């Protein structure tokens, strides 16, 4: 159920998952995987490393 304070995450369209350029799934970094972005939630910009082959390191 969508509350007035929460919005469906545009990035993942509510699925909680995004894909990298190889179609590997990963947890949506915008909503942290729950599919919704609350306007009261502070944006968390976690730093993500990538390796020399252009891949995300986790």
């Amino acid at each position, binding site marked *: 159920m969508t509350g007035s304070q929460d919005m469906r995450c*545009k*990035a*993942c*369209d509510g*699925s*909680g*998952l*995004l*894909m*990298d*350029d*190889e*179609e*590997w*799934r*990963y*947890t*949506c*970094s*915008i909503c942290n*995987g*729950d599919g919704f972005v609350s306007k009261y939630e502070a944006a968390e*910009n*976690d*730093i*993500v*490393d*990538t*390796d*020399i*082959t*252009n*891949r*995300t*390191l*986790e």
Partner: protein
Amino acid sequence: MQRLAKPGKTLLGSDSHTCANGCMGMLAIGAGGIDVAMAIAGEPYYVKMPQIMGVKLTGDLPDWVSAKDVILEMLRRHDVKGGVGKIIEYYGPGLKHLSAMDRHVIANMGAELGATATVFPSDKVVKQFLKQQGREDEWTELTPDQGATYDIHEEIDLSSLEPLIAKPSSPGNVVPVSELKGEPIYQSYIGSSANPGYRDFAIAADIVKGKTIAEGLSFDINPTSRQLLTQLVDNGHIASLLAAGARMHQAGCNGCIGMGQAPATGRNSLRTTPRNFPGRSGTKEDSVFLCSPETAAASALTGEITDPRTLDMKYPTVNEPKSDHTDGLLEAPPKPSGASVELEKGPNITSIPNFSPIENHFELPVLLKMGDNISTDEILAGGSRVLPFRSNIQKISTFTFEIIDEAYYERAMKARDDGGHMVVGGVNYGQGSSREHAALAPRYLGLKVVLVKDFARIHLQNLINFGILPLRFAHTSDYEKIDQGTVLSFENVHEAIQRSNRFDVKIKDSDETITVEHDLTDRHIDIVLAGGIINWMKNKSNLTS
């Protein structure tokens, strides 16, 4: 590996597990799409010289312990960043006990160590593999020089290994299988590039042959090629798997990248796949363990994580069949000359437009001012709404920066007609996924300059590749002088970026200037001035044709 890999050759591929082909004595590296395209066009691939980690293998694998446990041991010791900036070279007397496919298993997950590449020698083992593939004439010997030295030394006694397992949610989170004995599982998955060989499937089939898998468990079999599937059918292994209760899937990546077979939320899934980062399986809150086919098959029988050494049976012996199938490729190879080939494109495949080179004098409005750690997901998220349009630049650009500002697209399209725009950001701009569209889409919308406190390395390269000038504030306090709507004037940019890595930019309608810096090499400068790497490549071709 079966049809194309050749000892002594270099291989650049757009899949991160391209490195698996190091098993054949190749220097095989995964890279971004544009790098691969440039290599196809004859350009060299540039990489900072890695350190070489020499891993000496001694002893022999005990029963029930296989090649997957070797690479899991490497991950246990070095974790997911332990191979960054390194090429891993395996050598030593233990090598003779590892088949070519065993070496593929080990080289494949060098990607999970973060290694640039993994290399095995091309020896009699590789020759034997090529002979089985009907390609013996493609073998050449390639071994380390006598007395070769390495930057970093490592040693693994294969005899000392035991079955290992990576716990959720990292390939580096490795423990002995025996420590997790009894944990219930919902799914057991055989396949992927991490365990792709005949032996890997045959051993699983022999373990479950004549038995039935645990009730309520999904035992998923994902063959890795048509050739392999045919061999498994011919030798009765598919029948054994099906009779035990397995579900057969077509050859492909499938559930490994979340394309099907997604496990139930929070229910344990044992997989022979290479990655178990959160969400990879296609389920947000997944619980994926990585293990060998022996462990996966044993656990499928019991319904819980099981050390295969505790099974009351003799360790199966698998003999590799001779391959007389050459139908691995469904289509005929490409013709020697592609000039007459007509490309048929669907409605969502459009051409990348020609981008003009950056002008020498120009003024640009700041359409967005952003904070720190802006990720490529915020620039252009790779979700199910967006990715269907990744070959349609006109359509995909409508999603650019929408997470940050829904009105950006409209403003950018208006500004494009007036000469384009720029954006401003904080530290670590462009971090996260490497997707090139995070540079290509804004470029299409007229983005010409990105001015930030600093860049994430891969996105910086993508900006250069698409002709966007990447600049940093020489004094981070100048970030406060700019707002959305500020217009900056750039004069003599061509000369400025070639003469020095630092120059001044004027704030229009004020007396203020901002000092900016760049970290462009001479090659990068040539690419940016040409309007991107595609233009640069075309210009080079015109000069030499």
